[in-house]
């Protein structure tokens, strides 16, 4: 069994393999048919594809770079803020050190020196300070600057800054922001402070004791520093928390305290310095962490991921606009370029089609020559070829025409020799027998006959001349045959004005004599009739001779039979087929001879011609072998 190796066989269950499916799909795609569409689509697909690829790649690169730059800028801001915060806190620490080591440590509470020195220090730093205060270990206020009255019934020993100081006596302690709750201010003012507290050694009337030195820093100083940091960008923000994650500053502190906002400060406080990516409450964000020296506080920068996209939204829209505009421009340019390339080819193609429609004989005169040098060369070459083909075609036509004319001339030339020989022989016989008058008549008829036969070399003559030619011929033949048959002419005068090929009746009369009435001893009758019927002219030559069987009649106008038929000695050797072919060659297939014959009854041969008026113009056209337009 033969297997089709060219195509895959369907799998069991009638499912086609994937490769066949793909091939089938591709096969169904209709590719553009015109050269312009092919160029346009190819150029456009390549250009747009390349541009899209480039745009996406550049955008990705740009987006990544922007994230990097934003993160780096935030990092630089944080570094600067960290330096500023550390600077501020170091100053506060130095202030506390100065108060302790330069004043408290060497002074005695019994004197007034501490108050003065404390006031001096406060005055020098009051922009950044709310108060300085010294407490004994039992919470009793020793002195404060500015001078203030401690609230009644207030026990500071349970306040956090105090317990922190005593908890780790060797350290300085920075508290988280809180409202100061020490002094009674009758102007109803309350201050947010950050307390810097430490245990100090002092002496009261020479008795050593410990106490707590409190430096209440103005929280607004840190708040202003952080506010300035947060003014830089509306999407990213920075906050400050202590080492346990308790928030010191946050731009949305109120919302956080009221439960309208959330911050993951404990996680941030637990991390080392650096940059992290995290997801908090479903939001992706970049977190930058920087630790403040001396305090363990963490400065945290938050860059929400969507802040990049918010910033990029307009950029993306502009990019899309530029891409769309560029694609539109590319398509229009490609349209122009493809039209420019294809137009000469299309014009060349159109001119070739025109030439094909008009026929090869017109040559390459209609071939388009223009466009690019290659197309111009192609057009020129094609034109030359077409011109050459046209010339060859005309040569062939001319040769065919010449050949046909030669054939006609040859057919006509076949009439003359035999008849002339017999006629001249009769004239000689008349003269020898002293019948001079008859000889003169005979010569006169012969001269008329030849005048019409020659017709100054024309092939086309009027039917009238042709009938007269037949009369002259029959007058000569009747003398030769000693009036052994009768000749009758029945002609409508009208038909004499029409055109015909010359010498077409005489061969029929010759046949009627030789094969019809010769030997009938005076009973033979040959009649010639001519009439017009519609657009046709009919000339009939009839005889009442021996006639022919039908099978003979059928063979008379058969070309093949004629070639195979042996030539006989009778007549001029010009047969019916000769006349039939000449008429058809000149007037076309519908015309020619029609033969009817019955044995012992006689024969009718009818000449069928078109009714074309014989004049100079028609005669010229027919002579050139063109009868179609008449």
């Amino acid at each position, binding site marked *: 069994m033969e297997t089709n190796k060219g195509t895959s066989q369907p799998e069991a269950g009638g499912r086609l393999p994937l490769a066949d499916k793909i091939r089938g799909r591709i096969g169904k795609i209709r590719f553009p048919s015109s050269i312009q569409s092919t160029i346009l689509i190819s150029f456009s697909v390549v250009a747009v594809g390349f541009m899209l690829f480039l745009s996406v790649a550049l955008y990705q690169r740009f987006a990544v770079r922007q994230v990097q730059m934003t993160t780096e800028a935030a990092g630089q801001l944080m570094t600067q803020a960290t330096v500023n915060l550390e600077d501020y806190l170091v100053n506060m620490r130095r202030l506390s050190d100065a108060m302790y080591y330069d004043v408290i440590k060497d002074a005695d509470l019994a004197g007034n020196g501490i108050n003065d020195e404390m006031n001096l220090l406060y005055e020098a730093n009051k922009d950044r300070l709310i108060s300085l205060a010294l407490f004994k270990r039992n919470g009793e206020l020793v002195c404060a600057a500015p001078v203030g009255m401690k609230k009644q019934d207030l026990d500071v020993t349970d306040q956090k800054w105090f317990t922190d100081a005593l908890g780790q006596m060797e350290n300085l302690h920075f508290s988280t922001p809180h409202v100061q709750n020490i002094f009674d201010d009758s102007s109803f003012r*309350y201050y947010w402070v950050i307390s810097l507290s430490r245990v100090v050694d002092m002496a009261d009337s020479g008795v050593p004791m410990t106490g707590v030195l409190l430096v209440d820093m103005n929280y*607004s100083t840190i708040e202003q520093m952080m506010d300035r940091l947060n003014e830089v960008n509306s999407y990213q923000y920075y906050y400050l928390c202590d080492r346990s994650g308790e928030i010191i500053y946050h731009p949305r502190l109120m919302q956080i305290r009221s439960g309208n906002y959330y911050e993951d400060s404990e996680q941030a406080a637990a991390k080392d310095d650096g940059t992290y990516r995290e997801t908090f409450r479903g939001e992706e964000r970049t977190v930058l962490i920087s630790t403040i020296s001396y305090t363990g506080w963490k400065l945290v920068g938050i860059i929400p991921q969507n802040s990049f996209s918010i910033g990029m939204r307009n950029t993306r829209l502009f990019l899309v606009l530029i891409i769309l505009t560029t694609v539109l421009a590319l398509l229009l340019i490609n349209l122009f370029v493809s039209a420019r390339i294809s137009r000469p080819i299309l014009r060349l193609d159109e001119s070739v089609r025109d030439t094909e429609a008009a026929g090869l004989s017109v040559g390459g005169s209609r071939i388009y020559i223009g466009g690019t040098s290659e197309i111009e060369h192609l057009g020129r070459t094609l034109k030359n070829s077409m011109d050459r083909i046209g010339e060859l075609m005309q040569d062939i036509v001319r040769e065919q025409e010449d050949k046909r004319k030669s054939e006609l001339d040859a057919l006509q030339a076949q009439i003359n020799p035999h008849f002339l020989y017999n006629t001249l022989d009769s004239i000689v016989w008349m003269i020898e027998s002293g019948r001079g008058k008859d000889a003169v008549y005979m010569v006169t008829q012969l001269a008329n006959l030849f005048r019409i036969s020659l017709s100054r070399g024309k092939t086309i003559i009027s039917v009238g001349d042709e009938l007269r030619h037949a009369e002259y011929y029959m007058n000569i033949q009747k003398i030769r045959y000693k009036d052994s048959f009768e000749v009758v002419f029945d002609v409508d005068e009208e038909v004499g004005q029409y055109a015909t090929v010359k010498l077409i009746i005489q061969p029929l009369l010759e046949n009627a004599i030789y094969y019809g009435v010769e030997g009938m001893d005076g009973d033979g009758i040959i009649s010639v009739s001519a009439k017009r019927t519609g657009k046709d002219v009919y000339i009939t030559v009839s005889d009442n001779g021996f006639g022919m069987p039908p099978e003979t009649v059928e063979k008379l106008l058969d070309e093949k039979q004629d070639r195979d038929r042996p030539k006989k000695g009778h007549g001029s050797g010009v047969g019916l087929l000769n006349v039939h072919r000449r008429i058809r060659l000149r007037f076309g297939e519908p015309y020619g001879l029609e033969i009817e014959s019955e044995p012992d009854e006689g024969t009718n041969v009818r000449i069928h011609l078109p009714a074309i008026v014989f004049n100079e113009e028609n005669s010229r056209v027919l002579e050139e072998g063109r009868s179609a337009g008449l």
Partner: protein
Amino acid sequence: MRENRAFLLILILLTGAIAAVSLVIRRTSDEEEPRHISVVFSDSSADRWAAFKAGLRQGAEDAGVDIRIVRTGRFTSLREEEMLIENELASGADGIILQPYEDEKLWGMVTSVNAKVPVILTDGKEKYDIGSRQRLSFVGMDNSAAGAYLGGRILEETGAAPVVGVITGDSTLAGAAERVSALEEAIEAGGGTIAWVAGRSEMESDKGVPRDSAKVNVIAALDNDGLEFAADYAGARGDRAPAVYGIGNSSKVIYSLDKGIISGILVPDEFTMGYQSVSKMADCLSSGRRGLTGAVIEPVWVTRQTIFSEENETLLFPSVQ
């Protein structure tokens, strides 16, 4: 021919897409112009509004809108408030946050304004039938609940059937009456007695209000002004003063609480009130078709012992001094 049609279709689609993107870019640029929200409330420069104003500003910053707090004195008539609102509308306000003046005709004014822009009321929830209106809502404290809560606290703190003198404060503001009636109901239901009720006009005159103060062991003041007034009175009476409770949040009120002159205060969370008002208004304005939603803000009970607690510090001292 078929290819030409397809190409023409692509050109038309591209041109359409370019036009659409251009329109989006233009609209995006237009959207950068922030919406303006005007806030009208009585005596706007008073210290007691610090938390409310902080909430308004923070809300505006977060929502990306412009906030305009109209500078006002104490409202003396409905016409005064009407003129302020008309000015704001003429200045191009896209939304109004309003503390309504107590007047029967106010509702007509509110609905008239509401026909033009969305309105949020911060008082008078019980008085006005907001219903399910799309562009009118309420963000504020439930006055009836606040009056009832204060009454309950007084009963709880005093431990016996108290004789209470009530200072209503500024009764020209919507919602004052609801606080009074709810307080009275709660005190009387708990076995206490309302000895007298004094209004703003009596406070401002020298009629010796609180009258017969010796008969009362508790004074309940139902707004910040009334509570300051009561604190002054109690401070002057020293140890013989009745216990003072009330609703308020000014620095003077807090100081009096800190000094022990006032025994307990119900503090409206005005930061949240301001923040939520602006957020909800901005949400309504940005969404276009979305309705305006409201919120009831719960007050916080503060005593002398809890003033400086971490939870209350931010509420009582919202701005850095």
